[in-house]
C-alpha cells in the first residue's frame, strides 16, 4: 500500500467523478419510479397491481424473496472468508457487506409495498399499546419481521465495525462539515492497540453471530411458503434450498458489482483476476448446489405424483410457465456449467455476464416458486392466472434503481475497498519473516 493506492481508493469519496455523479442521478431517477408507482398505488388501492384471486402474491413477494436472497452475498460470504482466513477476501469484504445492507433495505420495502393497508404496517410490530393487542407470533410473517430486523441490525453493525478505521482516516483528511460527520462516525478511533484489539474481537464475534442469523433469515423467508398447505410450497427442503439459492444469487450480484467497481472506479489492481477466479469457483459450487436442490425438489414431487402438486409441476415444466422455467434452467445451470469450470470463464468479463444471467434466473426461480402454486389451488375450479401490471413492473425496476442509488451514495462516503485491511494484507505479504503467522492476525 503506497500513498498512490490510498489516493486511488479514496478518490471516489474525496473527489467523486463524472461517472459517479451521473450514476447517482440516473439511479435516483430510477428510484423515483418506485416512489411514483408506490404513491400511485397507495392513492388508488392495491388493485392497480395485477395480483388477484387466487394469485394473491405476485412480483412484490418475488422481489422480496429475491432481494433478501441477494443480501446473503455480503455478510455471509465475508464472514465465512474472514473466519477461514482466506487472504483473497481483503478487497472483497467491504463491497460485499454493503450489498447486504442495501439489498435488505430494498427487500424490506416489499412487504410494505405489498400490504393492503401499508399505513398500518406498525401493527406487525410488537409495540405496547393501550388495547393490549400484540401481533401473532405464530405467523411466519412475524418471524420474518423478527429475523429480517435482526439481520438488518446485525449486518449494518458488521458493515460499520470494520469501516471504523477507514472512517477515522477520512476524518483525518476531511475538512468542514464532512469532518464533523466523519468524526461522529469514527467514534473516536485513534488506532490504539486497545482499540485494535477491541475491533478485532468485535469483528470476530459479529462474524460468528451473523452466520446463523443469515442462514435463519432465508430459512424463515422460505417458511413463509413451506409452512403453508399450498401444493409445492409445503416442502421440508425449502429452508436449505432457499439459503443455497440466496447464496447463489448473492455471489452473482457480488461478481457483478465487483466487475462494475473494477471498471467504473479503476480498481483492477485490487480486485484482481485472482479474486474473480476464487469467487468463480465458489460461484460454480453454488450453481451445483442449487441445481441439486432444484432437481431433488422436482424429482420428489414428480415421483410422488400427488394430483394437486402435479398440477403445479406440469404448469411449471410444460404449461404456461414453461418458457420461464427453462430459461431459468439455462441461465442458472447450463450457462454456468459451460463457462465457470474454465479459468478463462472465471475472468471478470465472462463471469460477470454469467452473474447477470444468474440474477435474472434467480428472480425467475422466485417467481416460479410463488406464482404457479398460487395459480393452481387444490380445488381446481379456481385455477387462476396472473399478469403483472405496469405499476408492479415500475416498482420492480425502481427497486434496482434504489439499490444502485444507495450503493452509489455509499461509494461516495466510504472507500469501496477496505484501506486498512489491504494495508494489513500487504504488510503480511512483504514481511516474509512473519509469513507463517497470518492466522494470528485472524480476522483483521
Amino acid at each position, binding site marked *: 500500500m503506497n500513498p498512490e493506492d490510498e489516493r486511488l481508493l479514496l478518490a471516489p469519496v474525496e473527489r467523486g467523478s463524472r461517472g459517479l455523479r451521473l450514476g447517482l442521478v440516473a439511479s435516483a431517477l430510477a428510484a423515483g419510479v418506485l416512489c411514483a408507482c408506490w404513491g400511485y398505488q397507495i392513492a388508488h388501492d392495491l388493485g392497480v397491481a395485477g395480483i388477484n384471486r387466487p394469485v394473491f402474491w405476485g412480483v412484490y413477494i418475488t422481489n422480496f424473496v429475491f432481494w433478501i436472497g441477494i443480501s446473503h452475498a455480503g455478510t455471509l460470504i465475508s464472514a465465512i472468508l474472514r473466519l477461514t482466513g482466506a487472504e483473497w477476501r481483503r478487497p472483497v469484504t467491504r463491497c460485499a457487506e454493503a450489498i447486504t445492507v442495501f439489498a435488505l433495505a430494498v427487500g424490506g420495502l416489499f412487504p410494505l409495498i405489498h400490504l393492503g393497508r401499508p399505513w398500518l404496517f406498525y401493527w406487525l410490530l410488537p409495540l405496547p399499546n393501550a388495547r393490549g393487542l400484540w401481533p401473532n407470533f405464530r405467523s411466519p410473517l412475524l418471524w420474518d419481521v423478527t429475523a429480517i430486523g435482526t439481520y438488518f441490525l446485525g449486518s449494518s453493525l458488521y458493515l460499520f465495525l470494520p469501516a471504523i478505521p477507514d472512517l477515522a482516516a477520512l476524518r483525518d483528511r476531511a475538512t468542514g462539515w464532512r469532518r464533523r460527520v466523519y468524526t461522529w462516525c469514527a467514534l473516536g478511533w485513534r488506532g490504539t492497540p486497545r482499540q485494535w484489539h477491541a475491533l478485532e474481537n468485535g469483528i470476530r464475534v459479529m462474524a460468528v453471530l451473523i452466520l446463523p442469523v443469515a442462514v435463519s433469515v432465508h430459512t424463515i423467508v422460505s417458511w413463509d411458503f413451506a409452512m403453508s398447505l399450498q401444493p409445492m410450497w409445503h416442502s421440508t427442503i425449502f429452508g436449505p434450498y432457499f439459503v443455497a439459492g440466496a447464496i447463489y444469487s448473492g455471489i452473482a450480484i457480488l461478481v457483478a458489482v465487483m466487475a462494475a467497481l473494477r471498471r467504473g472506479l479503476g480498481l483492477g489492481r485490487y480486485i484482481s483476476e485472482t479474486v474473480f477466479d476464487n469467487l468463480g469457483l465458489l460461484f460454480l459450487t453454488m450453481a451445483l448446489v442449487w441445481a441439486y436442490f432444484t432437481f431433488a425438489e422436482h424429482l420428489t414431487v414428480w415421483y410422488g405424483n400427488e*394430483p394437486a402438486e*402435479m398440477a403445479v409441476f406440469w404448469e411449471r415444466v410444460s404449461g404456461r410457465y414453461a418458457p420461464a422455467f427453462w430459461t431459468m434452467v439455462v441461465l442458472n445451470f447450463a450457462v454456468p456449467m459451460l463457462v465457470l469450470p474454465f479459468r478463462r470463464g472465471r475472468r471478470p468479463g465472462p463471469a460477470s455476464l454469467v452473474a447477470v444471467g444468474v440474477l435474472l434466473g434467480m428472480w425467475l426461480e422466485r417467481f416460479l416458486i410463488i406464482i404457479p402454486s398460487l395459480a393452481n389451488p387444490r*380445488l*381446481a*375450479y*379456481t*385455477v*387462476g392466472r396472473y399478469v403483472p401490471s405496469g405499476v408492479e413492473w415500475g416498482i420492480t425496476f425502481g427497486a434496482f434503481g434504489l439499490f444502485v442509488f444507495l450503493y452509489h451514495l455509499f461509494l461516495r462516503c466510504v472507500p469501496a475497498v477496505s484501506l486498512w485491511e489491504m494495508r494489513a494484507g500487504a504488510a503480511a505479504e512483504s514481511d516474509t519473516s512473519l509469513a507463517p503467522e497470518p492466522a494470528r492476525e485472524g480476522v483483521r
Partner: protein
Amino acid sequence: MRRRRFLQNSAAAAAAAMLHACARDEVAFIEQAVARSPHGPGESVWRGSVCQQCPAGCGVRVRLVDGDAKKLEGHPAHPVNRGGLCALGQAAVQELYHPDRLRGPWRLSRGQPSGAEPLDWEVALEELAQRLARAARSSPQGVWIGCGSVSWPAQYLWRRLAAALGLPPPVRLRSVEWEVEREAARRLFGLEDWPYFDLERADLVLSFGAPYLERWRSPVHYARALAEQRQEPRSRRGRSIHVEARLSATAAAVDRWIPVRPGGEGWLARAIARELLALGRASERAAAHYRRWFPGPDPPPESLATRCGVPQEAIAELARELAESERPLVLAGGPMAAQRHGLFHVAAALALNVLLGNLGREGGVLRPRRFDLERNLPPAPPLATLAAGLQRLRGQAPQAIVICDADPVHMLPPASGVEQALHGASFVAVMAQFLDDTALLADLCLPLHAPLERFDIVEPEAALHTAAIGVGAPLVEPLGATRHPGDIALALARALEVGEALAWPSVGALVEQVLQDLHRRTAPGGTGDFWSFYEDVLDRGGLWEERPALDGLEAAAPREPIPEPKLDRDASREPSLLLAFETHVRTAEGRGLHLPWIQQLPDLLSTVMWDSWIEMARADARRIGVRTGDRVRVSVEGQAAFEAFVVESPAAAPGVLALPLGGGQRDYGRWARERGVNPLRWLGAGEVEGVGLPAWGPVRARVEAAGPGRAALFGRGLRAPEDRPLRR
C-alpha cells in the same frame, strides 16, 4: 303523508338552528331515517309481498329497516316457492334501488339520444289520452296495446280500458316458446292454460328440452319438487332424465342426460311412443288419440334413430324404463318450443303422458287450479294471444302503440314485426321501469313503480295444483314520480270519460274489492272480519289453498293432426349449428340483466360473468385456433353477425355452437348497456308450424377467431384434481 311533512319540517328547522355547521347530507339522512319508518330507527320489520321478476309468482317476505327494503326471503308457506327464492328473485331489491330507474315521465324521440325531455305526469297523461282518443276515432284497429305485466290489476284494468274504449283487447306479451307450449296444451289436453306437472310425486321424470331447473315456468317450485322427488320419505329415490341437444344446467342436475340432434327432440318422442305402443303400455283409447294426433306412418326405427341422433338400443331402453315405471311423467318445452317444428316437439313429447296414462293422476299431468279473481267483477275480454296480436300488427300498421311492462323488441325475433311497427306508428307510449329496447323507441315513456312500491295481485302464470295468489302492498316510498300501470289505466279512463267503466279510485281499491270477494268465497258464510282477513293477507303476501287438489284432466279429442316436419335436406354449407339456450338468469325476455348481482353471477357451467359467450367443443375451438376466453366472430347463414367470447366445454357436441339468451340490450341501465348479444336477432327462421308465431331456433353458422379477449370467468378449472389427466 302529513306526518312525514311535519317531521321533515321540524327536523329541518331544528337542523338549521342547531346543526349549522353539520354536513347537509347527514341531516338529510337523519331526517329520512326518522321520517321513512313508522317503527323505531334501525328496527327490522318483516312484511309479505310477491315477486314479480318472472311470471312464476313466488311469495316473499321483505325485511324493512328505516323505511328501506333490505332483503327478500321466500315465504315458507307459499305453495309456489315454499320458502325458496331464485337468483332473480333475490336480486329484486337491487332493482328497486337501481340508480338508472326511470323516475319521471319522459318525452323521447324514437331512439335518438337528443330531444329527450322530462315531463309532468299531467302533461304526459293528457298527451297519451289525446293520442289514444284520436287513433281510436280514426280506427279502433289502429290502436295496438301490448301487456307483459305479471300484475293482475295491470292486465285487468288495461283489458277493461280497451273494452270501454272499444279497442281490441291488449296482447299478451310473452316469449314465443310460452305461447307454443300453451298451444300444445290446448291441442292435447283441451286446456286454455298451462298444465301442471306433478313432478314431486313422479318416480321417473323424462323432460324434453324444458329447462325446468333453470327458469321455464316456475324454477323454484320445480327445483323443490325434484329435490323432494329424490329425498323426502319415499320408498325409493325418484329418477330424472333430460333430453336436450346441449348439456344445460337442467341436464347437468338430473340423473341422466340424453343428447339429441338439435331438432330431433320430437322424433325421439315419436320413437319412444312407437316402442310404448309396441309394448302395449298404452290404453286403446290413448293409442287411438295418438294415432289421430300423429296420423302419418311411423318411420322405421333406424330412420327415427338417425333423425334424433339417439341409438336405437338407447331408445328401446328408455321406453322400457318408462313402461315399467309406476308413475312416469314427461315434460316438454323451453327454447325447443320456439323452433319451426316446436309444436311438433312439444306435442310429441307431451303425448307420451297420454300413452302412459298419467293424466289427472298423482305424479302425472294435472289441471291447474286458480282462484277466479274476476268472477264478481265487471267483465273484461281476456288478453289476445301473441299470435293474434302479431297477425294484427302485420295486417294494418297501427297508429298508436301502447306497451305495458314488457320488452317485445328484445324478446321477440325481428320477424315478429314489432320493431318495424314501432317505427311505423305515429305514436308509441311505453310503460316501463327502465329504458329497455322497447322504451327506447317510444315517444312517451311512463315510469312504473317497482313491485314493492305498489298494491298488486299476482297469479302464478302457470298455475299449480294449489290455487294461489300473491298480494303486495306499498312497503317503501316510491323512489321517484312513478305509478302503477293500473293506476295509469284508471287515470286515462277518467281523462277519456269512460271513468264509470273503471270506477275504482286506485289499484289499491280494486285489490281490496277482489279480496273482499275472495273473503266471502273462501270463508264460507263470510265468517270472520274482513279487515283482519285483509291485514292477514297483506301480511302474508298472498292467499293460497292449504293443500293440493287432484283435478281431473283428460286427453282432448284430436281435431287436427300435429304438423310433422318434412325431412328436408340441409343444403347449407356453413359448418356449424348455432343454438340459443336459457340459463338460471337468462331468458329470451332478458329480464334481470340490468342488475349487477345478476350480471356478475357466474354462469353455472361456463362460469362467465358480465357477458354473452359462445360454447363450443374443444376440438372445434382448436380447429379455428381459439381457446376459452378468446374472441370469435360469428356469421349466420353467410352474414356477419356478432362477436363473443369462446368457452370450450367437454360437453359440447362437435359442430354445435351455443349462445345464451338475454343480453345485447341497447340500454336497460348502466350495467346492461351494450353488453353481450341477443341471439334472437340472429336465430329467427320462419314460423312455428301450426302456431303462426315467428320461430327461432338452430341456424347454420360459421365461427372464426377474432383475437384474444379478456373474458370474466370465475372458475377456469374444468375437472376435479383427482380426475385430471396426468398431463393436460
